[in-house]
């Protein structure tokens, strides 16, 4: 399971197929793409805060839900390493054992930091 988030080299890049699918869904209008990217970039810190709060309070359900939502959105934007880390945390939280979750949460923060520039670049059209 742990190899899932040892994809350091890829963490900064977005899956081109996922980006293509996203554009097929919402169209090529730069304004709409910017809306989507802004919404995601605004939303991630809220989910990360929920995750941190859940870990601190031992609230496995809150952690699971935050990781689940993050995972889905990461896949939409093609941030696969970020998504893998979220999936790992979701599965850990689903079993209700949060003792080992610290390093996974740190990996989520790290992969988000790595993927964020590429996601923000979508909004300016730099990566298309």
């Amino acid at each position, binding site marked *: 399971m742990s190899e899932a988030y040892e994809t350091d080299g890829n963490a900064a890049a977005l899956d081109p197929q996922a980006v293509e*699918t996203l554009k097929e*869904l919402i169209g090529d209008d730069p304004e709409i793409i910017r*809306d*989507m990217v802004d919404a995601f970039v605004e939303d991630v810190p809220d989910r990360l805060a929920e995750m941190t709060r859940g870990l601190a309070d031992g609230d496995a359900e809150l952690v699971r839900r935050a990781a689940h939502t993050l995972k*889905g*959105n990461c*896949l939409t934007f093609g941030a696969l390493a970020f998504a893998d880390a979220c999936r790992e945390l979701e599965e850990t939280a689903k079993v209700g054992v949060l003792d080992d979750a610290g390093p996974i949460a740190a990996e989520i923060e790290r992969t988000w930091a790595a993927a964020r520039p590429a996601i923000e670049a979508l909004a300016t059209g730099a990566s298309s």
Partner: protein
Amino acid sequence: MSSGSAPGAVLVVDDDRINRLLLTRSLEADGHEVATAENGRVALELLEGNLPDVILLDILMPELDGFAVLDQVKGDPRLRDIPVIMISALDELDSVVRCIEAGAEDYLPKPFNPTLLRARINAGLMKRRLGQVERERVRDVFARFLPETVVDEVMRDTNGEPRLGGVRLVGTVLFSDLRGFTTFAEKTPPDVVVDVLNHYFSEMSDAILDNGGTLLGFLGDGILAVFGAPIASDDHADRALTTARQMLYERLPRFNAWARSELGDDADFRMGIGVCSGPFMSGNVGSARRLEYTAIGDPVNTAARLQDLTKELGCPVLVSDSTRELLQGGESGLEFVEDHDVRGKKERVMLWTLGLTTR
């Protein structure tokens, strides 16, 4: 972008703002009208207003989750025909199966695939439209003999089936006959006979349906109608008398005026009406190929006999005492005629008629 079929109204229910945005943009690009709800509670509030053609429903949500929303939608006659497509992550297949067993139409896996999204939405819209066509067909069947105001209630009660189960209710039966028509028909060309009869039936059917009556049928030149069935009501006797009054004193003169303009000055038709209240059974009877809504019981027979008695007693309308006793309104305008032996009744029946001048 072309959707491949006519656009519709879609309700997107998902607690994830990104998903809501993504689905809204994508569906709007295909021309659909999109409403969104961030949880199940908000979704149910929205469903109290205009109905969507398809619901896209996330499973895991705060406040009220997708399972609960699905249960409420499928348990509500007003909502249950709306196709519901579950939104789910690929690892939630157990939940998807549970939802499909509970009545969900299909599911849409996350992350969304544009081709799959379009296919699911179009299939949902198609199902919704076929359902609406079928509903209209059933509605037409009921609207032929039920007043407009009752049709929706009956549609709810029968769950969209074009068949009314038997019920026993206290209501009022009205039986009418067009006097002299048989003689007229014998010496008149058939096309004119049919034209005159159709004109007469249109006038009288409107009087019955406008007053909330249920039209059971035309028998030769006779009309059988009931008030207070298939949906029970308290004022069936009052509405039957109002109808009788309108038939005799508004509709018949208007029909005669039309008949004179078509057939000449000596066209002058008369009517006899019998009205009787009491318990009777009503429901759809017949075979699978021919189905009629009918009423069976003593008031039906008595109303027919009272109609017949109008000739003998020289009143255009005869109303049984049972109808007078059930009147809810104040001044009925009824005038006593006499106690009469009515065939099939053990006791004499007090008979009343409608005065021309009152009400």
